[in-house]
């Protein structure tokens, strides 16, 4: 894959081989996702068998997996309720159950962040005070009334915030983090290719 980067993708053998490997990655990765499904079924079945705490809810878990999985595997030609597309059980359950529940799970974070900000956000040190002040200014700047409030002060504060905080200090730090993380990822990739790093296989 590394050699293929430096060669034209239409190069015989190398170009073709890299495309084939990319296809293989998609297929192997797909089977890896199915591992998670088998795992959740195993764990839930064990919890029911051993009557662990909350075991009746594990019946709901297994039932949910089967309700989603089985109709999606059956051919659409048998019934429009089967398959994955609009009008199927799979699509109905996704749109009316899974997607709203996923959205709700994340929506509760708004409450937690408000509570965390109230209880833990303290100006204990100079650095913490700077973080607090910047957060407050940005929270004002990102909403209409806040921006109107900032415009009451002399000078073009919203312009200053955008130019020097977001496109200035923030940009510089994020750039530093991106460069550092990318160098780390490249170094790790080299270590894996050279066989120095084998922790992903479960040994040092």
């Amino acid at each position: 894959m590394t050699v293929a980067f430096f060669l034209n993708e239409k190069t015989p053998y190398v170009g073709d081989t890299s495309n084939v490997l990319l296809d293989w990655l998609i297929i192997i990765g797909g089977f890896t996702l199915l591992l998670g499904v088998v795992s959740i079924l195993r764990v839930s079945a064990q919890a029911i068998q051993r009557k662990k705490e909350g075991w009746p809810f594990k019946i709901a878990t297994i039932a949910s997996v089967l309700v989603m999985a089985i109709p999606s595997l059956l051919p659409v030609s048998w019934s429009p309720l089967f398959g994955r597309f609009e009008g199927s059980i799979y699509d109905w359950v996704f749109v009316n159950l899974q997607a709203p529940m996923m959205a709700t799970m994340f929506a509760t974070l708004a409450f937690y962040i408000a509570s965390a900000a109230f209880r833990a956000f303290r100006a204990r040190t100079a650095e913490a005070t700077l973080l607090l002040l910047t957060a407050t200014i940005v929270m004002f700047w990102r909403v209409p009334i806040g921006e109107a409030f900032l415009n009451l002060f002399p000078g073009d504060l919203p312009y200053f915030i955008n130019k020097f905080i977001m496109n200035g200090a923030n940009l510089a730090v994020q750039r530093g983090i991106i460069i550092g993380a990318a160098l780390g990822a490249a170094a790790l990739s080299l270590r894996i290719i050279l066989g120095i790093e084998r922790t992903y296989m479960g040994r040092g």
Partner: protein
Amino acid sequence: MSFWKKFNDMDRRWVYLMVAVTVIIPFLIPMKFPVSVSPEARNFFNAVDSLPDSSVVMLVFDYYPSTIAECEPMAIAGAYHLFKKHCKIITLSNIPYGGPSMAESVTRRIAAELGKEYGKDFVNLGYKYGYVSVLKGMGVSIESIFPTDNRGTPLSELPLMNTVKNYEQVKFVFEIADNATADYWVSIVNAGYGVPMGVGCTAVMAPKFYAFYGAGQIVGLLGGMKGAAEYEILLEKPGTAFRGMDIQSLVHFLIIGLVIMGNIGYFVTKRGKRKTL
């Protein structure tokens, strides 16, 4: 002194209740505060607006249903803008949970409104596992990665895909993401194949993308619901994001107020402790 201690030790469920009430109020009393447009959103809009008619654009749905409130308004505004400009849209997703379904729902709805035809004006490629393979593979041949569209129709049967083989025919990538796949679009597609792109992302991710915007790797940036509202304003089609800014305003003020009160309480109780010592 005891008031501040009691206030700081308040059960967190009272904070939850305050947030809930603050979110509900603007639904009962709409306020419609004016929304200003940032340079990042304006540049994004101008980049799409300056595309020649009939340009092929990839509209990428790389977000989970959990962030639909932030990302879907961007997708709707983007699809509307692109269809109005008679661009040909190829949608795809690197997100297994509903990416293709969301792409179908948004594009078909807007296409029906503007009289666009599936297969000729837009195509939904669906999802394939392994975004690294997908992004690199499409550089050689889109058909090698997506042999059929999301519904199983071979690409050779779709008139639009007969003219688009790989990134060379794609004029712009309109990426909407709530996760790190946006980084890979930038590092693999933009850096490797030179396809111009703009990113609409959740507010959590937006600060990071200022670095890509500053480096010219993306032409514009829409950050969170505010970014979506800005695009709606530029499109002169205010939607759910614009309406949501009222509520954002009030909740932000609530949280700022709580943080200030919490800090006042902290310093007052800390001074009280020092005096008793």
